[in-house]
């Protein structure tokens, strides 16, 4: 069942158009990975979906168009983003970061319970709950960012290069968490990465993005089977 669909998505910054009209789809329960090099337009795609930059084209979520929605409406609809570079609120405590993630919710008891739950999933965050988020390590900040995004109970999680700047061990840990959420809670994920190796294991389907256009798509097996794509993009 199609959860999210974009057709002819075009976006850019000022006079520069970065996305040249791409088509994208995420079905319920899927983990979709978008691979691309620096400058391909991955973060632009994430930003366009979350509504923080002007965009054109068809964008539908659960059958409703969100092409003209404001960022807060998109969060309320059920899409949350873990931005590139973590994007934590550095001056706020870890706990306040999570509270901020739950901004669109009104059930304060539920929010408190969720915060407690996340401190269980990420015990290191629980130990540092009152610490300024900016003083945490990269991996810990990434945990904060993921937990924060999930506080709003999204149905679709957008992850922008979660492995950036992190050691492989931590990245594995994080991907495990995401994988579990997908399996157990049915969370759908759109993950963009430069580094194919780590993400491929999770992916149901893969898109390859190059200078604003999708140059290849298919299942992870299909793309791995294609020699030229494998060598050029997947590095093996």
């Amino acid at each position, binding site marked *: 069942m199609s959860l999210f669909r974009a057709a002819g998505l075009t976006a850019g910054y000022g006079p520069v158009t970065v996305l040249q009209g791409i088509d994208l789809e995420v079905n319920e329960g899927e983990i979709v990975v978008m691979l691309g090099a620096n400058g391909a337009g991955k973060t632009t795609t994430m930003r366009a979906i*979350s509504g*923080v930059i002007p965009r054109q084209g068809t964008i539908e979520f659960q059958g409703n168009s969100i092409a003209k929605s*404001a*960022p*807060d409406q*998109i*969060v*309320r609809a059920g899409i*949350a*983003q873990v*931005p590139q570079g973590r*994007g*934590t*609120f*550095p*001056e*706020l405590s870890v706990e*306040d970061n999570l*509270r*901020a*993630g739950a*901004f*669109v919710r009104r059930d304060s008891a539920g929010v408190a319970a969720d915060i407690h739950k996340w401190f269980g999933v990420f015990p290191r965050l629980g130990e540092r709950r009152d610490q300024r988020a900016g003083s945490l390590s990269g991996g810990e900040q990434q945990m904060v960012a993921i937990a*924060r*995004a999930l506080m*709003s109970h999204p149905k679709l999680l957008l992850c922008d290069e979660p492995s950036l700047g992190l050691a492989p061990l931590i990245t594995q840990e994080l991907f495990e968490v995401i994988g579990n959420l997908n399996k157990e809670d049915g969370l759908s994920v759109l993950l963009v990465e430069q580094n194919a190796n780590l993400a491929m294991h999770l992916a149901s389907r893969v898109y390859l993005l190059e200078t604003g256009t999708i140059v290849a798509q298919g299942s992870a097996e299909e793309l791995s089977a294609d020699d030229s794509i494998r060598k050029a993009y997947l590095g093996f």
Partner: protein
Amino acid sequence: MDLFLQRLFDGLSDGSVYALLALGIVIIYRGTGHLNFAQGEMALFCTYVVYQLGEWGIPLVPALLLGMLVGFALGVTTEVALVRPVAKKSTFAVFIVTIGLFQGLNWLDGAIWGDQVLPNSAVSKQQQFPSLFPNKATDFWNIFGAGVRIESVGIFAMVMVLTGLLFLLFNKTKVGLAMNSVASNPESARLVGIPTNRVLSFSWGLAAAIGALGGVVFAGQNHTVNMSMMFGVFIYASAAATLGGFDSPGGAVLGGLILGVIQNMVAGYADVWVGQQMKIGVAFVVIVGVLLVKPSGLFGTSKVERV
């Protein structure tokens, strides 16, 4: 000792006004990164409005609340109509806009109410600009042998209460969380669904309303209102914000109080050297001193970058 206490409380009272305006400056600065040059003039305009309401027979407290409401509206309108469209272009342009607003509001005050000191027996019904607290020469308390003006104590207490309320706002409410989030990382704030634009408008409105209170209190202390009243106060408030740290509301209040006390002590004890004219020199010295020693101020975060 009695002179010391007197000067201390006078300093706390003066400093409370600086604190109020410094709060406005800091709330806007940490939320938006802009320095609102027109903070003092916005406060002055609202003060004139309160004067006018007084002329129409409205008692001080409702007039003050209406004045603060006018201030809130003025702040929101400024952010939506003047700052937001221009901020997309450059911070320099926003700065110039606030300077233009500084001059424009000041001119408007004169245009509407004239450039003489008010109340004026020729044109006004009121004898003096009203004060929230009793402030006749006979209204003082005897504390340890010093005559401390009731007004001074009242103003100081009121500002402390306000500071407490703001503390609650920033730390215990969703609105405060939203403001802190936007101040900390505006892009992420949007990504978690915080309506960033409305938060910015609210910040400006809140800052202007607090400033309005400061202006009315100041006019009450001086019994009058006039066009050039807030120039000095604005620079003192800026010095207070510099001292306390431009992104710390608590620092702004403390900075204001400290500055008020220093100023009164220096003017009192070194009156041969400092005297009335050079009181403003104190503000100048404080700003330069802080910049030399600890540019981020007492409580500011060291996001302050060196060149």
